[in-house]
């Protein structure tokens, strides 16, 4: 492919990179998972709390990365906890990325098959996406970021337009009463509302690629604020438009919201098809992020060429896509991924920060 030397990204590119890594298929099922756990219309409060919980997490990751400028977690983990423990941590992280990459593509295929392409074999949807992803990822972080910059405004604009039209079935009383059952449901839903930020570990990789690391904090907080805002908007509109009882019984509540009204006389009467087609691009971006991180991780960890790694990743990702046997398996995998994310955060960010702090501040070692 093309040889590039400018493998650096600007602050705004980094922001969009983080946004696109977090924002994927989750938005289609999130209202159900949160509402189901809570059984109360207060889900929007939980999403707000979840957002404020995730902010310090991001800050912690950025702080850790800034200690090792220009290095990704795959490079600096070994320096903190020692070569082999570091490698094991990173391998876990890479495995996690491969699983998510497969999960994203599989969700994309499931939604596509159910609503758009009934009858197409699943591999015929999955493979072109993986191939296109391979091409994009082989261009390096800069190309990926540029593609994100092009796709992001389109998908978000269309999502907002669809949401705008959904206001015609919005009923504020569906969101009331607030705190009717006290704060217990809020805590029950908190888990689901944090799990939707799966993928934010990318912070520990993209900060290393930033042209100007001083802007890292601002850029990363911005990158998490966009999905946070969109999640909030989604939960308010979906619950407000459908009522919690409908949300709980719906497999893809966000799509069902758009399917619940028709715009007679508009140039497309039903918005779910264009929305889904455009959201496929968003899920593709999401997938590419994890593809990129997994390939980069292995290549940095074992000093293998990045380009070779990409091609080795392709069958692995395909396998991880095809592992879930049914949609139930897929949702179970989604939950498992969320939990893995939490553990990995504890293992990587918190553990690494702690060890670093003890070694530098306590033992006065030079890391």
């Amino acid at each position, binding site marked *: 492919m093309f040889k590039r030397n400018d493998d650096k990204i600007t602050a705004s590119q980094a922001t969009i990179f983080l946004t696109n890594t977090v924002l994927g298929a989750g938005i289609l099922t999130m209202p159900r998972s949160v509402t189901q756990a809570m059984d109360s219309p207060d889900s929007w409060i939980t999403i707000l709390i979840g957002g404020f919980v995730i902010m310090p997490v991001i800050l912690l990751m950025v702080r850790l990365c800034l200690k090792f400028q220009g290095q990704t977690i795959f490079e600096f983990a070994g320096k903190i906890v020692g070569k082999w423990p570091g490698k094991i941590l990173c391998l876990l992280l890479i495995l996690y990325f491969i699983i998510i990459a497969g999960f994203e593509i599989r969700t994309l295929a499931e939604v596509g098959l159910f*609503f758009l*392409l009934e009858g*197409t074999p699943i591999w015929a949807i999955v493979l072109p996406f993986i191939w296109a992803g391979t091409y994009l990822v082989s261009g390096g972080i800069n190309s990926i970021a540029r593609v994100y910059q092009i796709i992001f405004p389109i998908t978000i604009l269309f999502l907002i337009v669809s949401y705008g039209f959904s206001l015609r079935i919005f009923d504020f009383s569906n969101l009331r*009463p607030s705190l*009717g059952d006290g704060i217990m449901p809020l805590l029950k839903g908190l888990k689901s509302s944090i799990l939707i930020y799966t993928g934010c570990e990318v912070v520990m990789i993209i900060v290393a690629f930033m042209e100007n690391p001083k802007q890292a904090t601002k850029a990363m907080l911005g990158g998490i604020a966009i999905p946070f805002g969109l999640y909030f908007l989604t939960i308010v509109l979906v619950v407000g438009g*459908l009522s919690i*009882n409908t949300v709980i019984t719906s497999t893809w509540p966000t799509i*069902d919201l758009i*399917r*619940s009204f028709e715009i007679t006389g508009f140039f497309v009467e039903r918005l779910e098809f264009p929305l889904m087609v455009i959201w496929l691009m968003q899920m593709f971006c999401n997938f590419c992020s994890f593809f990129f991180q997994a390939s980069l991780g292995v290549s940095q960890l074992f000093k293998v060429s990045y380009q070779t790694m990409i091609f080795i990743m392709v069958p692995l990702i395909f396998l991880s896509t095809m592992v879930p046997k049914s949609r139930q398996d897929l949702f179970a995998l989604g939950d498992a991924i969320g939990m893995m994310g939490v553990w990995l955060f504890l293992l990587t960010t918190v553990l690494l920060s702690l060890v670093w702090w003890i070694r530098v501040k306590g033992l006065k070692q030079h890391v």
Partner: protein
Amino acid sequence: MLLLILLSFLLLTGCWSSKEIEDLALYAGLALDVGQPAPVEEEFEAKGATYSKKNKVMATIQIVPTKSTSGDEKKKMIAPKHYINISASGDSILEIFRQFSIRRDRPIIGHHLKVIVINSDLLKKQTIEQLMDFVLRDNDIRPSTLVFISRGKAQNTLISSQPNEIPAFHIYGMIRNRSRTSKVIQAVTLSKLDGLMYSKRSLVLQNLETAKGETEFSGVGIIKGSTGHWIGNLNQEDTEGLAWIKNEGHAGVIKTYDRDNEPITYEIKSMKSKTKVHVNDGKIAFHVSIKTEGRLIEIWNSKGHYTKDESNIKEVEELFKAKLKQTIDELMHKLQSVYKVDVAGFGEALALKDPRLWKSIKDDWDDLFSKTEVTFDYELKITEFGSFTDE
């Protein structure tokens, strides 16, 4: 280069699972009736063309548009219908639909389903959850589909005497008349119905009545949440009452008779209501304030009582108020004493006011509601007299 050309043959073959729209049969309406073999089916079955089933439900679908007939001009003397209705019965709606595939040349597809009409007798035998299960799960049928009830045969609502009309679209369009009358309730879509069914709330669906190939919205059918069965209908005036209480109406008329027994009519320009909940030691009471403004639009009495002085207007306002009160009282009597269900949104008001209390009683709410005190006050103001003056 040759490789590229070959590759393009492989890759540019178009959509994998594409189906040409000409080869599909779109259905726009679905009517569900009590199961009995349709006449055609009876003949099929007599010849042994059947499969194992119980005739619990008869599904009728309306396929549009049928193939445009081309060719002989003379044969076109009878105006061709723009739709075909086709019926079959069985005990699984999907199985019935698939059964159509061995009777029709084009596969049916549900993307454009607009209305579902359910016969009320069927809803006495089967629950609404059973009947709606398939349409809610299906991936083609959109949750924006509207659901109606019909006291007569549901399949008759999909027949029209107008030559150029597709009944399913006609019914779908009639919902727009909410801007003219409050006898049309807020349309119940599948997604709304889904939520109501899940929470076991009693609900109303617009009732369709047919006569001589015409269909009319006439009142609403009540489905009791705890059982999922149809329990009765409310008439057109009760439906107006519902709109007043639920604060969902936009327009309509109040007609009453003056002291000479001549009709006078009030055109509603605004209708608003507010439900207040009072909870005292677990005793629940509601108070509904109804406010309306409008114009005096039609007077048949020629004796000239209607001058614009204050006392006169007051008198007329009282007449309309009395009529409004009568409508509401009749409705409340039916809800609280006859059917014992709350379909007027009192439960929702309570849920907002006191969610904890609501959680503990919501399962027997319909019963509790029938013993709950509901009071009303009315404020009616005639603001003008139209563009004609008889002073």
